[in-house]
C-alpha cells in the first residue's frame, strides 16, 4: 500500500474537460497521492487551476512529465487524447487515465492501447458511471439471476449542451453521439458481457440547429439477440433542474429493474436565482474512479477500472452510430 511518506505523484495534462477539476479535487483529498503539477495548452487556465488546487503549472508537457510522475490524467479535447497519452507513456509513468471518449477514431484508440502496452503502462478510460453503487447493485442482481434471462435494455444519457470545444467537431470528433454514447455502452458491456454486433441511429441537430449533432437515438443489437436503445441527446433545456441523467430499464424474463443513476437528488427552490435545481447527494463516482486509478499508479491491480480496450469497445459503438445515420440503415459494429 502507498503511504503518506511516499505519496504517488500525479500530473494532469489539460483542463479542457471540466471533469479534470473533479479529478484534481479527488486526488488532492487522498493522503496517498499528491497533485504534483499541471499543464494546459491554455496557460491562463492552467495557472488558474494550479492555484485553485495548490499545485504548480508547467508551461510545456515535457516540463511536467520530467517530474518522474507515477500517473497522468489526460483531460484535453478528445482529438489530443492520443498525443498526450503517448507522451505520458514515454515519460515512464505507471498509468495514464484518459477522459472519455478514449479517442475520436478507432485507429487512435488502438494506437493508444498498443503504445501503452508496449511500454508497460496501464491505460485506463475515465468511465466513472461503472463505479456507481446503484449500478453495482443492479449488476449484482442481474448476475445472481434476479431478472432471469436479460432480454432488452432501454438506456438514456441525456444532458445539457456543454458548449465550448464539445461542439467543435474537429476537436471533439462529433457532438452528442460521441459525447454520450460511450458511458452507457460501457455499462451495457458490463451488464450483458456481450459484444454489440449492430447499430442503427437517428442523429439530428434540431435543438441548436448548428453543424454538430445534438440528438442521437441509437438501437444496438448484441450477440445472442439482446437489444438496447440509447438516447444520447443534449435535450435538457437551460432551465432544466439538473445537468442530465443516466438511466437503464433492464427487462428480463423475471421482471424489470430501473436504474436512475443520479436519482439521489434534492429539490431546491430558490427565489434568489428564480430557478429550481436538483442537487445530487449520491456517492462521488469520480472519487471511486480516482481510487482505482491510484491503485494502477501504485502498480496494483484495479479490476473494476475501465481499460483502454473498454474505451475502444464503447467508442466503436459511437462511431458505428455515425455510420448508421449516414447509411440510414443498420450497420455492423
Amino acid at each position, binding site marked *: 500500500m502507498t503511504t503518506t511518506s511516499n505519496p504517488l505523484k500525479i500530473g494532469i495534462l489539460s483542463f479542457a474537460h471540466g471533469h479534470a477539476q473533479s479529478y484534481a479535487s479527488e486526488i488532492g483529498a487522498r493522503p496517498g497521492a499528491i497533485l504534483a503539477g499541471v499543464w494546459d495548452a491554455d496557460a491562463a487556465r492552467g495557472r488558474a487551476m494550479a492555484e485553485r488546487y495548490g499545485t504548480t503549472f508547467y508551461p510545456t508537457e515535457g516540463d511536467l512529465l520530467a517530474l518522474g510522475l507515477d500517473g497522468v490524467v489526460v483531460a484535453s479535447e478528445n482529438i489530443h487524447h492520443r498525443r498526450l497519452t503517448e507522451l505520458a507513456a514515454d515519460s515512464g509513468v505507471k498509468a495514464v487515465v484518459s477522459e472519455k471518449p478514449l479517442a475520436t477514431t478507432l485507429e487512435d484508440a488502438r494506437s493508444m492501447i498498443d503504445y501503452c502496452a508496449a511500454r508497460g503502462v496501464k491505460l485506463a478510460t475515465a468511465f466513472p458511471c461503472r463505479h456507481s453503487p446503484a449500478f453495482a447493485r443492479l449488476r449484482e442482481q442481474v448476475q445472481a439471476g434476479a431478472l432471469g434471462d436479460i432480454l432488452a435494455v432501454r438506456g438514456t444519457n441525456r444532458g445539457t449542451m456543454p458548449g465550448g470545444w464539445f461542439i467543435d467537431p474537429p476537436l471533439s470528433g462529433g457532438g452528442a453521439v460521441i459525447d454520450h454514447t460511450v458511458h452507457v455502452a460501457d455499462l451495457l458491456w458490463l451488464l450483458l458481457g456481450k459484444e454489440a454486433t449492430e447499430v442503427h441511429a*437517428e442523429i439530428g441537430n*434540431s*435543438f441548436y440547429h448548428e453543424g454538430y449533432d445534438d440528438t442521437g437515438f441509437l438501437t444496438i443489437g448484441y450477440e445472442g*439477440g439482446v437489444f*438496447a436503445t440509447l438516447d444520447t*441527446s443534449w435535450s435538457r433545456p437551460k432551465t432544466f433542474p439538473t445537468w442530465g441523467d443516466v438511466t437503464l430499464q433492464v427487462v428480463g424474463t423475471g421482471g*424489470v429493474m430501473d436504474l436512475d443513476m443520479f436519482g439521489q437528488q434534492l429539490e431546491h427552490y430558490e427565489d434568489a436565482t428564480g430557478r429550481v435545481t436538483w442537487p445530487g447527494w449520491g456517492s462521488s463516482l469520480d472519487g471511486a474512479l480516482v481510487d482505482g486509478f491510484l491503485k494502477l499508479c501504485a502498480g496494483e491491480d484495479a479490476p473494476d477500472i475501465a481499460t483502454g480496450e473498454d474505451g475502444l469497445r464503447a467508442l466503436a459503438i459511437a462511431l458505428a452510430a455515425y455510420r448508421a445515420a449516414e447509411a440510414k*440503415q443498420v450497420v455492423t459494429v
Partner: protein
Amino acid sequence: MTYRVALVGAGNMGGWHATHWKRMEGIEIVGVLDPRQDAAAALGPAFSDWETMLATAKPDIIDICTPTPNHREYVERAAAAGKAIFVEKPLSRSIEDCEAIVAAVEKAGVPAMAGHVVRYFPEFAAAKKIIDEGGVGTPATVRTARLSGFPNITGRENWYANPDKSGGVVLDMILHDFDWLRWTFGPVTSVMAKGLFGSSRFDEGLDYALVTLRFASGVVGHVTGSWAHPSGFQTTFEVAGDKGLIAHDSLKSVSLSSSLRGAEGGRAAVIMPESPMIPNDDPYYQELKAFVQALRAGVTPPVTVYDALEAARIALAALESITTGKAVTL
C-alpha cells in the same frame, strides 16, 4: 333526437363503452351482439345474429368492440347498411384490411370514428396544446412509454396472446402512442424497432418493444411498449424542443395514493396510486361524446379511419422492422 347504439362485442372494451353510453344523454343501447349471450345481456338487449339485430333493433350507430381480427367484417357490414360507425383500435391486423375498412367507409359515405382514445387523455391533450402553442419551441425529440403486464383474459380465449390476432404490444398498445405522435408531430418517414414479437419469449407471455421513429418534420421519436412489467400500468412521455421540455410520468403525477394494511396486519396488501377524474372527463366518455357531437353537427368525426390506418401503418412497419432487423422507410 336519440341515437340508437348497437354494440358489437361484449368483452372488456364493450363493457366499458356501454358504461359511458348509458351515462350519455340522447343515447340508447338497443342491441348487443356477442356469441356469449350472458355477457351481451348484461349490457343491453342481447343478439346472436347480425341481421336479426339490424332488423329488430334498428340502430343508428354500430360500435365495434370485437377482437381486432373481426373489425373489418363488421365495419364492412355496418357501412353497407349505411350506419354510423365507431370502431375500436387497432383498425385491423394488416394494411390490406385497414385499407379495405377505409374504402368501405368512403364508398358508403358513412361517418366513422376510430377509438384512438389517448387523444382524449387529459395529460396527453394538455401536452399537445402546450406543444402546439410553442411551449417547447420547435420540437426535436419525443419519448413515450406504455408499460404493463401481459394482458390476460380468463374464461374465454386470450386473443392478445395470439400474435396473429393481436399484433402484440406494438399493434395493440403502443399504437396509441403512434396515433398521438402522428397527431402531434405529423407523418413518420422511418421506423426502426426491436422487440420480442415473433420470438419464443412472446409465447412465454412476454412482449417488449423499443421503437425509434423519424418524422418528416425532423423530429426523432422513441416509443417503449411493454407487456413485461408485472406490476401495474405506467405511461410516461417527454417532448424536448429548442426552447423547452415537457414531461409526464403517470406514477408520479397522481392525486391519491393509498397503502392499506393487509388482513394479517403489518404488511401492505396493496399500494395503489390513483388519478380519478370527474366522470364526464373520462377519456372514453369524451371520445364517444366527440363522435356523437360530430354526428349531430354533420361534420367529419375528429379521429377518422384514415387516421387509424396511418397509425396502424407505423405499428405494422415496426413489426416488419422487428421481423427483418432492418429500418423500414414509409
